[in-house]
């Protein structure tokens, strides 16, 4: 039987009256990213920081246990590893190491999220359905945030659980837990919105990647030049994204910073910039002609 001979059958179901329109976008985007070529390889690589920190946490655990006859090992360990014995410092190191991975993940997962829709003129597909530009942006944002948090917040919480298993509650405080949750949330949100903003600037994903790096390294160079010509005024380093992320780590994990400016300023810079980027992307999407 020819399939079309079946004819048209009206759908007997009921549309959800007040659906979360962003949710199908989140699910679809996550699925699309996961099905990308090399996604699984990249995600496996992204687990390396977690595995390294896990390994050193275990080394420190056994080195600190007198009953295991490894105490002498503690003396042999390099100073950098020994500092990981201090929980706040350990999570600060983990959090700031993840920034480099944010760049790779953001580019891999997020550079195409909006630019591909512009390229393929997919907006009528979205906006002929009952969703707003805000739903669209929220869907894309949560999808990217999911991957960034998957390799920052989730391993951070796992490390915390393992440290609890190794050392008990000794050295763990509410302040540390807040830091472990808030630091990746703020930094990943910032990176997601930055990536989405760059992604909304061009339909060409290669251009998106170039613009992304231009901003990243442009700001780094600017901060270096201004710090240099000001005779080493470290406050100018706050023009750089990575410095602000590192400073945010200093704020949440109470690790001493070499920069004169208070770390909370960087937290404000990231939050304010993230808000501005959200506004800019939302405006850009609203202005796209369907």
């Amino acid at each position: 039987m020819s399939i079309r001979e079946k004819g048209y059958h009206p759908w007997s179901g009921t549309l959800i009256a007040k659906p979360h329109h962003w949710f199908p976008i989140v699910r679809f985007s996550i699925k699309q990213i996961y099905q990308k070529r090399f996604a699984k390889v990249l995600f496996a690589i992204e687990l390396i920081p977690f595995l390294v920190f896990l390994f050193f946490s275990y080394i420190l655990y056994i080195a600190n246990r007198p009953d295991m006859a490894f105490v002498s090992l503690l003396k042999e360990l390099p100073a950098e590893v020994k500092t990981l014995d201090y929980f706040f410092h350990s999570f600060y190191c983990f959090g700031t190491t993840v920034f480099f991975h944010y760049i790779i993940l953001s580019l891999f997962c997020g550079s195409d999220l909006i630019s591909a829709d512009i390229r393929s003129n997919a907006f009528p597909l979205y906006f002929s359905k009952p969703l707003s530009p805000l739903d669209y942006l929220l869907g894309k944002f949560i999808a990217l945030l999911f991957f960034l948090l998957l390799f920052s917040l989730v391993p951070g919480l796992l490390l915390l659980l393992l440290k609890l298993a190794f050392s008990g509650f000794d050295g763990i405080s509410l302040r540390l837990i807040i830091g472990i949750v808030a630091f990746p949330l703020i930094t990943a949100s910032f990176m997601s919105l930055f990536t989405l903003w760059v992604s909304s600037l061009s339909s060409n994903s290669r251009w998106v990647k170039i613009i992304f790096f231009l901003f990243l390294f442009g700001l780094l160079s600017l901060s270096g030049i201004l710090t240099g010509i000001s005779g080493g005024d470290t406050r100018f380093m706050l023009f750089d994204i990575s410095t602000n992320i590192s400073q945010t780590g200093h704020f949440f994990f109470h690790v001493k910073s070499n920069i004169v400016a208070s770390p909370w300023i960087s937290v404000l810079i990231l939050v304010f910039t993230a808000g501005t980027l959200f506004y800019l992307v939302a405006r850009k999407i609203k202005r796209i002609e369907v």
Partner: protein
Amino acid sequence: MVMQAHIIELNNISYSYGSTQALSHVSMNVSQGVFGLLGPNGAGKTTLMKILMGFLKASAGHGTILGHTLSEDPRLFRQHIGYMPESDCLIPYTDAVNLTAYTGALAGMPWHEAIKRAHEVLYYVGLEDSRYRMVNTYSTGMKQRLKLATALVHDPKLLFLDEPTSGMDPSSRGEMLTLIKDIAKKAQMNIILSSHILADIEATCQQVYIMNRGELVTEKTVGEKALAIDARYRVRLQGDLDSIPDVMQSHLIPAEHAGHFQLKLDHSFDKNTFFKCLQDQGIQLREFIPKTETLANTFEAAIGENHEH
């Protein structure tokens, strides 16, 4: 929400892109069925569709669609509308099933229902064999069918089709028109079809709105219904023509030669009434030839008049 007899009511809708007037005082009342928007490129058909979809806000005038005013949040009525745009608007590197289900989910269908329904509509539009293929590998005809499937998936009450046969070869075009007719018949869906191809409109629509330069130039009933309610004939009568009753005279337009008329029939005065009147008055009917006024004639006349203005 206001209950309306018409699915679309427009009153003096205007829209301009900067200094270019795209729509000028368009008024129309669209009841249930299949309606065509016909006009040359740049006539304002797509702009009108975009206003009806809520993509653009009319700069003047007001209207309702499915009982909702155009000034309301368009999300309130978009759930019940399907839209097949003229341009390619498919998400690449995804298969047809997922894409169709995705658009269903965006309209508010539960995901498992959307997947099931996606298979059904893809079967229906004839993409059964290629539904797991990446959509970026599709031909133009297949993309058009897929766009129709994404517009149909949530079983809308009103379907907007913008140049549905654009870029299709004759055989695919014929299949697409058959599908549109089938949807209108079996799903009893209201369809607004925009096209600059007269044959497409004639083959599918019951009424057509002809647009030119942003204005609604004329409207015309087409197809079988047109023959039934708006038939014209060339007639030649012989006998005492002064005895023609008034009721019949209003349907007869005298031609150049004596005894020749143009007869216009409608619901109130059909063929049988005409014949009976002639019989009662003892007037002989010597000629009775259907006057074939095609959509092409109407279109050319309307566009020509509009150009002169």
